[in-house]
């Protein structure tokens, strides 16, 4: 076995969904992220799709889809959006991600 395959087998990549599942969550029924997708039309940057660490933003056939369930509450989407399309607030009543280590 080559060195490379040996190290490859030592550590498996973890999918983002599984990494998010390592956390404790109390997801709100009401979204705390609202995106005005019409403003996204013509956005060439799409920074939210690769910089949101929770993977909450995806492009599907050129249209922006978003979710709030895996939001890690960092606020990156709000800061990087060049179109000011993201209305972002913290979840109410302590809901959302529950950091045990932080």
């Amino acid at each position, binding site marked *: 076995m080559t060195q490379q395959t040996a190290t490859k087998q030592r*550590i498996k990549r973890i999918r983002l969904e599984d990494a998010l599942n*390592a956390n404790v969550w109390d997801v709100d029924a009401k979204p705390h992220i609202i995106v005005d997708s019409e403003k996204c039309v013509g956005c060439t*940057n799409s920074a939210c799709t690769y*910089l949101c660490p929770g993977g909450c933003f995806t492009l599907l056939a050129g249209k922006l889809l978003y979710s709030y369930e895996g939001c890690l509450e960092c606020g990156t989407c709000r800061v990087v959006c060049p179109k000011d399309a993201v209305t972002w607030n913290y979840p109410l*009543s302590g809901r959302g991600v529950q950091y045990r*280590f932080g």
Partner: protein
Amino acid sequence: MDPPSATKFDVAIVGAGPAGASAAYTLARKGFKVVVLERGRTPGSKNLFGGRVYSHPLELIFEGFKNEAPIERWTKREVLSFVTEEGIVSVEYASGSSTSFTAYLSKLSAWMASKAESAGAILVTDVRVDDILMENGKAVGIVSGGDRLYADVVVIAEGVNRLLCERRNITPQLSPEEVALGVKHVIRLGTDKINDRFGLDSNEGLAWFLIGKVTDYLPGGAFLYTNSTTVSLGIVVFLSHAMKKVKRHIYEVLEDLRTSPPFTRLLEGGSLVEYGSHLTPEAGLKMMPKKLYGDGFLIVGDAAGLLINLGYTVRGVDLAAFSGYLAAEAIEEAHSLGSYTSHNLSCYERKLNDSFVMKEMKRHDSVQKLMSKSHIFELYPQVLVGTTKRLFEFEEASPKLLEAAKESLKGKGSKFKMLLDAITLMRGP
């Protein structure tokens, strides 16, 4: 909201992180009637950081800090690594003494808030503050949903996302140039494996910084901190650069790091127990609000932009906590003057300026500016690794140091520029 709206407090503090909890603890001990409003279910449940805290300022604020606080390990090994596709060059410092420790911020914040509660502060959790209550241009309390809570003075410790300050036009909207994004894994390995693999005793901690390929050569870096039974492994990228240059999901950058040498070997058999992210202030003095005080309010911690990133180490918690402590002193002084006017609260800025907080912020401002320049993070690792590779990996003719350095510098830019950067790093402009 739990405490009846009719109750009026001396001080309302927004946020029970290190800054808010330190202010609450100090004020409660001075006899002020304090309420802390925390949006999380428990204090700390919305806090996240890299993993290291400088201890001294916290020892000044909290009685019994060293014995009671949830300290994981005292940092006794420091490693700074430059990483490229070709290899790694590291500088290591080991010492018997230590001024910083590794910790979990959720636990540290919870501990600080419990100290504030023991001192008499009232902590209300699960409450998101939506606005600062203003009357005639003066802060007189806070608004949460339909509830109002009145206080003589408000301490804004809302963190890096300054939603309240922005709403009240105290600060402009946060821009990508002002912040960096940190993403972090907490990986459980167990005490024995950590001690064996990182060469540590049970109470000894390692703080490891890496720059170069670890962030796809973007300004920022990677870090690893050892806790008692886990390690914190993460990356930090300056958002303005990441927006222009990162072409894949930021999580993949972190996963590439975790699954590449030397981490494959060091973290083998570990299990992921938490994945989180947070923004950090990175613009030095530029991100600070023009005034950290106004009629009836003070701004502390991350909201005040208090964080120093020197490339080889980052400090934020101690600055945040100490700003909270100084805000408490300022409130006491303003109280003795009879009112919480902007004028009376301005002593907060003077106290900050006289303390290590602003002295350090100012002293390191030029280095912080340098940290946001992209060439540092590519050129330095390339030259260092390139030179070292030439020095050690030869077949017949072994090069002299200068020859190896010259060879690795070829086509990589101006030597003069590198020299200037090195001087800035060492002594400021």
